[in-house]
C-alpha cells in the first residue's frame, strides 16, 4: 500500500499517486495540543475518511487541510509541492473545496445563487462589468451558470433551484452545500460530517451522491464522519484519530480489526 504507483480498490477502481500528503502535523492552541505529529496521505481518486471519537481532532485536521489553520509544526504537500502558509481562499483556488459540519450557506439567497458562489474562484470579471452584466462578465456568468446547472442536475435539486435556502429542510441544505463545493470543480473535496443529523433515507441519498461524485468526476474525497457504518461502506482507506494522535490507518477492514481502534471506540478497562 505504500507504493507511489497507487493501488486497485476492492471494487476495481484504479487509485492514482499521492495528491496530498500531511507530514508530521502538529497543531497547538496555546497549551492545548489538538493534533500531535500526524502523517498520512490522500491519493488521487480515492475516498479517504478521518474518523475518531468526539474531540479527537478530526475537524482541526480538516481545517489544516483547507488552510483555515496553519499547523504549528509539520508540512502539507499538495500535488507534489510543499504548501506555504496560505489563506483559505488561496487554498480554494488551488482546487480544494469543502462543506461544513454546521452548514454555512447564505440563508436568504436562492439555491441557485448559493451554488453560483461556488464558482467565485473561477470568475475574473471586474465589479463594473459585473454590475452592468456586460461583455466579459456576461459571458462568464453564462459559462458558469451552465456548469452550475450540471451540478444541480447531478444532485437532483432542480425543483428547489429558485427556493431560498432558509426555507429548506436540513437534509436538503446539506445537499446544497455539497452542490456549492462541487460547483468549484475541486480536485480535492473535503466533507465535514456530511451525514450528521440525517435520517436513514437522507443518509442513503447522501452516500450515493458521494460515491457518484467520486465515480463520475473522479474527484478525490476526504470526509469526516461519525457514523461508522457509512464510513466503512464509503471509504477506501480510513485514518483513525484519538486525543489528537493517529491510532490507525488502512482499509476499513484493517481498521475494524485494529485493537487500538476498538479500544478507543468501546473504551478499555483500566
Amino acid at each position, binding site marked *: 500500500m505504500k507504493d507511489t504507483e497507487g493501488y486497485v480498490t476492492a*471494487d*476495481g477502481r484504479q487509485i492514482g499517486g499521492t495528491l496530498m500528503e500531511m507530514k508530521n502535523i502538529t497543531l497547538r492552541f496555546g497549551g492545548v495540543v489538538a493534533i500531535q505529529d500526524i502523517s498520512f496521505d490522500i491519493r488521487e481518486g480515492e475516498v479517504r475518511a478521518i474518523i475518531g471519537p468526539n474531540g479527537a481532532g478530526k475537524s482541526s485536521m480538516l481545517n489544516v487541510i483547507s488552510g483555515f489553520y496553519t499547523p504549528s509544526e509539520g508540512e502539507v504537500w499538495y500535488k507534489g509541492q510543499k504548501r506555504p502558509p496560505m489563506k483559505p481562499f488561496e487554498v480554494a483556488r488551488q482546487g480544494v473545496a469543502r462543506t461544513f459540519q454546521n452548514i454555512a450557506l447564505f440563508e436568504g439567497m436562492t439555491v441557485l445563487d448559493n451554488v453560483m458562489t461556488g464558482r467565485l474562484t473561477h470568475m475574473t470579471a471586474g465589479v463594473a462589468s459585473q454590475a452592468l452584466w456586460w461583455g466579459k462578465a456576461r459571458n462568464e456568468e453564462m459559462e458558469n*451558470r*451552465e456548469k452550475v*446547472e*450540471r451540478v*444541480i*442536475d*447531478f444532485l*437532483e435539486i*432542480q*425543483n428547489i*433551484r*429558485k427556493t431560498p435556502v432558509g426555507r429548506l429542510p436540513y437534509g436538503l441544505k446539506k445537499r446544497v452545500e455539497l452542490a456549492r463545493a462541487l460547483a468549484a470543480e475541486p480536485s480535492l473535496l473535503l466533507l465535514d460530517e456530511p451525514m450528521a443529523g440525517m435520517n436513514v433515507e437522507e443518509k442513503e441519498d447522501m452516500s450515493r451522491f458521494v460515491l*457518484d461524485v467520486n*465515480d*463520475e468526476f473522479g474527484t478525490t474525497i476526504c470526509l469526516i464522519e461519525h457514523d461508522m457504518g457509512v464510513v466503512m461502506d464509503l471509504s477506501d482507506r480510513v485514518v483513525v484519530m484519538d486525543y489528537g494522535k493517529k491510532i490507525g490507518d488502512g482499509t476499513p477492514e484493517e481498521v475494524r480489526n485494529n485493537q487500538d481502534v476498538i479500544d478507543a471506540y468501546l473504551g478499555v478497562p483500566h
Partner: protein
Amino acid sequence: MAHLTEGAEGLRSVPALLARNATQYGNSPAYREKEYGIWQSWTWAETAKEVEELALGLLNLGVNEGDFIAIIGRNRPYLYWSMVAAQSVGAIPVPLYQDAVAEEMEYVLAHCGARFAIVSDQEQVDKVIEIQDDLHQFEHMIYLDPRGLRKYDHTRLHQFSHVQEQGRAAREEFIKELDARRSKLGYDDTCVMLYTSGTTGKPKGVVLSNRNIIETAKASSEFDHLKVDDEVLAYLPMAWVGDFIFSIGQAYWSGFCVNCPESPDTMMTDLREIAPSYYFAPPRVFETQLTQIMIRMEDSGTFKKKVFDYFMEHARKVGPAILDGHDVSAMDRLKYKLGEVMVYGPLKNALGFSNVRVGYTAGEAIGPEIFDFYRALGINLKQLYGQTEASVFITQQPDGEVRSDTVGVPSPGVEIRISDTGEVFYRSPGVFVEYYKNAESTADTKDAEGWVATGDAGFIEESTGHLRIIDRAKDVGAMANGAMFAPKYVENKLKFYPNILEAVVFGAGCDRCCAFINIDLAAVGNWAERNNIAYASYQELAGHKQVLDTIQAHIEEVNASIAQDPMLSGCQVHRFLVLHKELDADDGELTRTRKVRRKIIGEKFADLVNALYDGSPSIYTETEVTYEDGRKGKIKATLEIRDAKVVPATPQKLAAE
C-alpha cells in the same frame, strides 16, 4: 395490397406522419425538454433526423420486424423517439410503467417476449438486469443516462447516443432496409401495445393498430380544433394510453409541440413556464391545486382576501355562462373583465393555465365545486370518458355543453349502446384489435360485431344525449323493490364535501339505504379549532353534536340532489351514523389504494348495520383495531344514529311503487 392505399389522407403510420411533419412543419417545434435549467427544443425536421438515426442504430443491433421493444422511463423526448424509431423498423413499442417493480416488469416482458428494452437510467437498468436471466428472448438494453453505469458489463448494454452514432455511421448500409420497412407499414399493423394496469388479475396487453391510433387522433383533433401551434405538457405515465394518444397520436397528426418537464418534482414550475394550450389532468391534480390556492388565500392579507372572494363569487355566478356563450348582461361581463384583470388572470398565470384552450379531466368523478371553480376562471375544462381498449375516446363534452355530472356525448365515430343490465357498450374505429395472446379475454370483452363492454353502468340522458356513468357494473345492485342501487354514485356525492373522508352506503336487497360516514380529521379539526370546540380524540370529534348536525345537513343536500334523478332516487340515505374510527387498510377495511371494501365492512360492523335498520337511536359497540406496529387493541363507543330527511321520489317513481 388494399391496405396500403387506404389510411387518413394516405398516412398509415406514425413514421409516415413524422415524414409529413418534417416537410410540412419542418421548422416548428416538435419537442421541448427542460434540461440544465433551459428549455431545449427540437423541430420536426430535427426530430425526424434523430428518429432515423436511432432506427438505423436499431437495425444495426439486429431488430427484426415484429419484435417487441420495451420502453421504460419518465416522459422524455428520447423515449418518444424510441417508440417512433421502433415503429420505423417494423417493431412494436411496449411502454411500461416506470414505477413498476421488477416482478411486474418480468411478467410483461416475458408475456410479449421483448428482445430489446430502451430505458431511462440506472434504476431501470438494474431492474431489467435483475430479471433478464429469466427472460429467454431478451437480448439488448439501451439506456439514456449513463450516470452510474460506467462499470456495468456492456456486452448487452448500449448507450442511447452510441446507438444513434453507430446508426449514423452505418447509414449507407441500412438506409435501404429502413426505407423498405417504413414503406411497408400498413394501416392494420400494430402501432403500439399497452398493458392495462390489471386491477383484476394479470395485466393484459392491448394491441392497438395504426388505424386505431390515427383514426382516433384525427377525429379527436378535429373535435377540439387542435393545431400545429398548440402546446402540451407530457407528464403522465408513458405507459398510459392517454399519453400515447395526446403526445404521439394527436401530436403527430396535428403537428403540435410536446413539452417534457425537467423532473417529476418540477412539474408545476414547468407547467407555468410552458403554459400549455391543451392540458389533461386527473381530478386529483385539480383538487390539490384548488386546496393550495384556498390555503394560501386564507393566509393572505384581509384586503387581498376580500378582493379574491368578491370576484370569485362573481366568477362562479357568470364565469361558466360566459365560457359556454350564454346570455350574460353587459354589466356582469364588464365586472367579469375587471375580475380578469384583478384576480382570474394573475391566478391562471400562477397556475400555468393562462393559455389553456382545451382542458380535460377523466378517470374518476370530479367534485362539482372543483370543476366549477376552474370553469368560473374561464378555463375550458371538460370531461371525457375513455378506456385503453377504445384508444381513449368513448365520450367527451363538446364546447358549450359542459357539465360536471356527465361525461359528454359519443366522440366522433363512436356508437354507444346501453345493455339491459345497464352496462355501457361502444363500437368505434378506435376499438382495439385484441388482447395479446389472450383470445379468451378478447372474446369476453369484444363481440363479433365489434361491440366492447366497458364494465361500467350508465345511462344516456334523453334530453341532452349525454352519457352519465353511475358505477362499475359489478357494483351496481338492486334494492328490495327492484330499484337500482348504485352505492358509489352516492358515496362520491358525499365525498365531495371536504368534511367527509369516506362514506359507505348499504342497501342492496333492502327497502332503503343507510350509510356509515368517516369525517375528515383535517377539515373537521380545522373547523373545530376555528370555532373553539375542544376535543381530545378522533372519536370524540366524530361524536360531537355539531359535527353530526353538519354531516346530516350534507346528507340531506345529497338526498335532494339524488331525488332529481328518477332512476336513482331510491338510493337516498335514510339513516346514518358517523364511525368512531377511521377506515383503514391495516384493518382490512380499505384496499391499499384506498377503495372501500363494502362487503368486509358490512360483516365487521354487522351490529352497526343492524342498528341502522332496526330504528334504534344509538348503539354501543366494541371494535378491534390494529396499530401500526401490529399490536391489536379495542375501541369502545356508543354511537348516535340519526335519521336524514328524504325527499319524496319523483311522481313516476311513486307510480311504479
